[in-house]
């Protein structure tokens, strides 16, 4: 397999796997950013890029809110509500048991009940391949 094919293929794969548009809570402050590039090192979806030595947000809708960029930003130029994009975990969390969960603005972290109560045996939801792969 030649290199150009591989590159094209990987690009198309990334586009194919884009989730809902315009939902991410990612916020980036141009003023606070010192363009150290740490965010480009940690983001698994190349949301950030470097253009002429300056960090830019190049693919906002690819953000999965894992929180790696914000956690590793030395100047707090990046803010995001980090959480797990897992419907199973949301269902297992206390969010679903409160009335009004289906209304906009009702929030959860997406962590399971077990994560809220560490005393329980399983440290994870145990649903699907999320926590074992």
């Amino acid at each position, binding site marked *: 397999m030649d290199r150009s094919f591989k590159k094209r293929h990987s690009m198309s*794969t990334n586009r194919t796997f884009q989730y809902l548009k315009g939902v991410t809570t990612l916020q980036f402050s141009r003023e606070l950013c010192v363009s150290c590039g740490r965010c480009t090192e940690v983001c*698994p979806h190349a949301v950030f890029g470097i253009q002429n030595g300056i960090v830019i947000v190049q693919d906002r809708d690819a953000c999965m809110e894992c929180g790696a960029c914000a*956690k590793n930003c030395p100047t707090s130029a990046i803010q995001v509500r980090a959480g797990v994009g897992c419907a199973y975990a949301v269902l297992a969390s206390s969010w679903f048991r409160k009335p009004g969960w289906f209304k906009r603005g009702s929030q959860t972290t997406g962590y399971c009940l077990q994560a809220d109560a560490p005393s329980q045996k399983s440290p994870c939801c145990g649903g699907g391949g999320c926590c074992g792969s």
Partner: protein
Amino acid sequence: MNTQFLSPTVATLSDTWTLKDYWGAFKVRWGMGRFSYRMAPGLYALGTPGEETPVFVTGNYKLSVDHLRKALQGRDAWILILDTKGINVWCAAGKGTFGTEELIHRLRTTGLLEKKGKKLLILPQLGAPGVSATEVEKATGFRVVYGPIRAKDIPAYLDSGLKTTEQMRRVTFSFLERLILIPVELKGIIVPSILLLSILSIVGAFLVWGTSLIGSSSLSFGDSLLISFKTFFPILPVGFFGVILFPLLLPLLPGRAFSLKGAMLVLWGLITYLTVSHTFLEVPILSLLFRVIPYFILLASMVSFLAMNFTGSTPFTSLSGVLKEMRIAIPVQMGGFLVGILWLWIDLLKRGIP
């Protein structure tokens, strides 16, 4: 091995997999003992590392450690295993157990802080959601770099002098990566679908039996159960659609929301079924369509729900996106599920009347 800076003798790791390791990996892929597949946290030596050897950090899910040591075959390395409660690096980072505090704590208790030579920590990129590199560097004097996402890229990363390519930094979700998730998902769906089929059939059987008594056509309960079972049997492929076909066909299915993709998959199934029946069995399409509508509604709701729950197994869905789709999808799925069941039960009620 130069371990002067370490107090007790350091445990060693092998860089090859034994049959037992392969068997263990196979078992956890089927969800067997997945939450107790752990290693003791701490510092391990691979080969004969010294003061200048960098430290690789990972979690104590044994499969994570196994992939790391296999990738480092033939090399010397320090491997620092954090206590992530037996969970893989990415999930543990999300929960914070693969985190800043635990990393600093392990560096202290293993004596690594006294390391004199190269103070370099190589963390897996997917550990970044839990670790603040800035804080670790400040607290320990170690330099923190994030290595590639996949362990198999580590040899190329080391050989190029710790340079990553764009491809090493991006998560993928290839056909094979989706395929290996199927066993765990399949295992989780078998019992619930058999249970659901049993409950629906038994309630349905009472409906047929009851109405047949009133209508004095007097069916036996066994016959009623058989009629009811035959009615609900077509929902059994729900697992096949939801946890086998759906992950495999994921990139081909239209839409962005998983719940929609799941429903589309069942629509494809319906079209295929109608086409095949019409072409080969020459069944009139309209009468067939009317017969399969309740099954379509029921299956689409259930597969849509399973598909939505697959979001947690993928590496690209965000919490905000999941919440947005759940708010709309869950009421629709619940509605479809109830309509489908009631439709079939009402059909059964009619069957009892001669």
